[in-house]
């Protein structure tokens, strides 16, 4: 009840409703543009949230994610190019429906099922956060340190590619956070006498550099995407259509709801799983791949459910489930909110206000999705060059707006170059970003723990929760290394036998 009152207070006493709707609108537009992912769309807003109240800023970012997951289905259906990674499976059947003249119907299914999935995810979020918050009281400095390292390890080993490179990327991110004045002893670390480096590297610069600037560099050599007719009109599902698609919608909502809680999984994996499960349980599995409405309903419900349940590990443990959640995590820290087990205890107003804002975001997505379709189609039909120019201007202006410091512009370009280099050598960027976001918290808790243990490094294993978490870390890393090694040797043996 107290939570409901806090949510209502936030909605009525702050511009939270406006922020939720603005976030959804921006997310739909950003998600609809194939050059922007949900995380980039969110990252572009970060500099603009500096002057906002924390709860309003977080609602804006989370609502952007909600909108982007629907927005990504627009180009997926109309031009077979997913705007976000969560719409990859929607591009298969959605585009087939569009080819058969049912594009409006596909968009309507995507929108309506996305809203259902989002609301279902929200229910899970609200009911699971409270018991997890009770655990917060048991967490010591050692446990805080261990959970930060666990989060990094999970993301590093579960991200695409080599777990070894993921861990190295995470270490690089942690290393970047040691630049600047040490907050505990006042020692100047890795500043080389530069006044600009005394304050350290702002995580926002790294996030925007790695996500947005790097992507701009990569897309500079890519051809323009396809265009579509602007006459498509969205039509929401009829009762008859709902009878057909509700099982897929429920399956997608369930899959997305569970997947969202798993670090590293994200909306892409949940969309694929939802698609497969919906086909398994469908009365018309043969239609999947040929324009089945259920094949649109399930993944769209899933990726919107993820937008809500992804907040569970992010808020409760400081472990983001995806790149978008890592951006949200960065936003929390930017506004002085420490994610983790104590967040609900210390910032109840923000957490429950966020729930209220997400509820508004999911409901308003229905209206905004209808209204913004035409502008989104218009934008998708514009040449890529205009989009790239607009993003460049927005990024550089937004970064400068934070501190009016030229050094920030240099830093964000440097982060973009770093991200490009990581991509070239096959290192995942998400662990680095997470390392930058969590680095200070991890180091502070590490040093606090060692001080509490009077210099004894075994202090981490003397705390039961920390001991369990650290053992989990070793288990995760070892199992991933073993699995990767087994897969590698099997591939080698297969290619040798084929030879």
């Amino acid at each position: 009840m107290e939570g409901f009152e806090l949510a209502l207070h936030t909605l009525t006493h702050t511009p939270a409703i406006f922020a939720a709707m603005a976030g959804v609108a921006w997310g739909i537009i950003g998600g609809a543009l194939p050059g922007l992912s949900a995380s980039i769309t969110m990252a572009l807003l970060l500099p603009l949230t500096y002057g906002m109240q924390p709860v309003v800023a977080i609602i804006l970012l989370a609502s952007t994610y909600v909108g982007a997951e629907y927005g990504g289905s627009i180009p997926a259906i109309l031009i077979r190019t997913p705007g976000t990674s969560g719409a990859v499976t929607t591009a298969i059947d959605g585009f087939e429906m569009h080819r058969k003249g049912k594009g409006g119907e596909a968009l309507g299914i995507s929108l309506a099922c996305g809203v259902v999935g989002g609301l279902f995810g929200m229910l899970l979020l609200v009911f699971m956060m409270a018991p997890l918050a009770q655990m917060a009281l048991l967490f010591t400095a050692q446990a805080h340190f261990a959970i930060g390292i666990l989060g990094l390890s999970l993301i590093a080993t579960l991200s695409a590619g080599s777990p070894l490179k993921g861990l190295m990327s995470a270490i690089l991110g942690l290393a970047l956070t040691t630049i600047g004045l040490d907050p505990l002893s006042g020692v100047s670390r890795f500043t080389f006498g530069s006044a600009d480096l005394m304050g350290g590297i702002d995580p926002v610069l790294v996030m925007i550099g790695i996500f947005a600037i790097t992507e701009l560099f990569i897309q500079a050599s890519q051809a323009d995407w396809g265009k579509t007719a602007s006459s498509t009109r969205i039509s929401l599902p009829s009762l008859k259509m709902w009878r057909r698609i509700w099982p897929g919608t429920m399956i997608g909502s369930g899959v997305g709801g569970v997947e969202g809680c798993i670090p590293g999984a994200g909306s892409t994996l949940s969309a694929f799983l939802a698609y497969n499960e919906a086909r398994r349980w469908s009365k018309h599995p043969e239609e999947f791949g040929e324009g089945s409405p259920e094949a649109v309903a399930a993944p769209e419900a899933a990726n919107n459910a993820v937008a809500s349940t992804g907040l569970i590990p992010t808020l409760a443990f400081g472990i983001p489930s995806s790149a978008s959640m890592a951006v949200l995590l960065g936003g929390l820290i930017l506004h002085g909110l420490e994610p983790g087990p104590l967040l609900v205890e210390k910032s109840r107003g923000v957490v429950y206000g966020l729930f209220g804002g997400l509820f508004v975001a999911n409901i308003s997505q229905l209206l905004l999705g209808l209204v913004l379709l035409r502008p989104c189609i218009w934008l998708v039909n514009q040449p890529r060059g205009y989009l790239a120019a607009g993003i460049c201007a927005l990024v550089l202006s937004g970064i400068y707006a934070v501190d009016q410091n030229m050094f920030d512009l240099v830093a964000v370009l440097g982060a973009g170059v770093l991200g490009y280099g990581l991509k070239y050598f096959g290192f995942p960027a998400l662990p680095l970003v997470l390392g930058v976001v969590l680095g200070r918290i991890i180091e502070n808790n590490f040093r606090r723990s060692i001080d509490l243990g009077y210099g004894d490094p075994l202090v981490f294993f003397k705390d039961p929760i920390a001991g369990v978490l650290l053992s989990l870390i070793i288990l995760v890393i070892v199992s991933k290394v073993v699995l990767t090694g087994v897969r590698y040797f099997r591939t080698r043996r297969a290619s040798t036998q084929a030879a």
Partner: protein
Amino acid sequence: MSKDLVAGALFLIGSIVFYMLAAAFPVSALDTTVSAGAFPKMLAIAGGALSLLLIGSGVWKARAKPAVVADMPLEDEDEDEGGDLDKMRTHKRALGLLLILSAYVALVGSLGYIISVFLLIGAVAVYHGIKPSWQLVLLAALGALAFWGLFVQVLGVRLPSGILPF
């Protein structure tokens, strides 16, 4: 030379340099059981160890490759390879965009925000294949004014005026 070898070597050198710099931090009177250099040193050691593993992995893969028949298409066993980023054209295009953005950063202080953003929008659009035309000039001008309006008027941010009076 494989990318893993190069990446591992660079990371190892970086880790060594990082450790040496951390070891040279001055001792502070406010230091407790853990000094300011402890965490960076830990990271450097972990980074060095992992980079040695990566170098070893690179050497292993380089030595194992001849086992595959020459005329068989090589599978991309290392799924981390850069894909499109292996093409020189991609690098050149990325470098070109970096130069444009760097030029903006270099000029915004002296030319001012509106003119710099106008030039930035025009340059990036042309770089991406938009033909120079009066329409592009108009769009770039409107875009610059729109961004100026958003950041200066709406958000109240002070941006460099440069050679213009506002």
